[in-house]
């Protein structure tokens, strides 16, 4: 699975993009955030409050309850401040 990070999520994790292989029991967006946070270190700092993290799958906004696809691009970022 390709993960991409933006804004302070990117800065805290320390990378823009990475490819991960998820365990079989990581089924939803919420599971993914929890699994990443448990990696500790930079990930724990970036995902300290997983509730505020916004997620897009293949460039579409999704909720934390959304099931993960088998493959695709998952983006993690803070609430947007465009406009």
């Amino acid at each position, binding site marked *: 699975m390709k993960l*991409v990070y*933006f*804004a*302070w999520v990117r800065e805290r994790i320390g990378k823009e993009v990475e490819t991960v292989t998820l365990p079989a029991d990581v089924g939803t967006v919420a599971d993914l955030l929890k699994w990443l946070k448990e990696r500790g270190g930079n990930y724990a700092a970036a995902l300290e409050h997983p509730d505020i993290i916004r997620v*897009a799958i293949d*460039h*579409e*906004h999704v909720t934390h309850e959304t099931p993960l696809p088998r493959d695709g*691009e998952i*983006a993690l*970022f*803070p*609430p*947007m*401040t*465009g*406009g």
Partner: protein
Amino acid sequence: MTLPCVPHVRVQAEDFDVAAEIERLAGGRRDVGAVVTFTGRCRDEGGRLAALEIEHYPAMADSQINRVAQEAARRWPLTGLTIIHRFGRIEPGQNIVLVVTASSHRKAAFEAADFLMDYLKSRAPFWKKEHPVQGEPARWVEAKGEDEEALKRW
């Protein structure tokens, strides 16, 4: 009007020209009764701010803006609609975002532009970082609860 207009959307580092964008929607047309433009600009926050740095998610920005633009074109009888959002370093007094709506009718042009700005604020994948004038560290602008609230009007 039968079919929704086709929105013109650009995500770019360069500045834009409001007059040229009005001309694109209304020039030579005899059916446009109202043109509304909204220009969002970088403020210096009382002298505190040296520049904004706008990060975006390129693969998603264009498609999300197009999606909300198409929704506006379905909901209001617009004859034309343009949205331009800049990214990169932007200094006080410079432009950030432009929405232009054209319609036969005044209310449609106003409401669609207002709607679009509410949606761009909370749905388009852009993030602003403030670079202060003084030696303080840069910091990310926090999203406002009121922006999320504003969406409920629509």
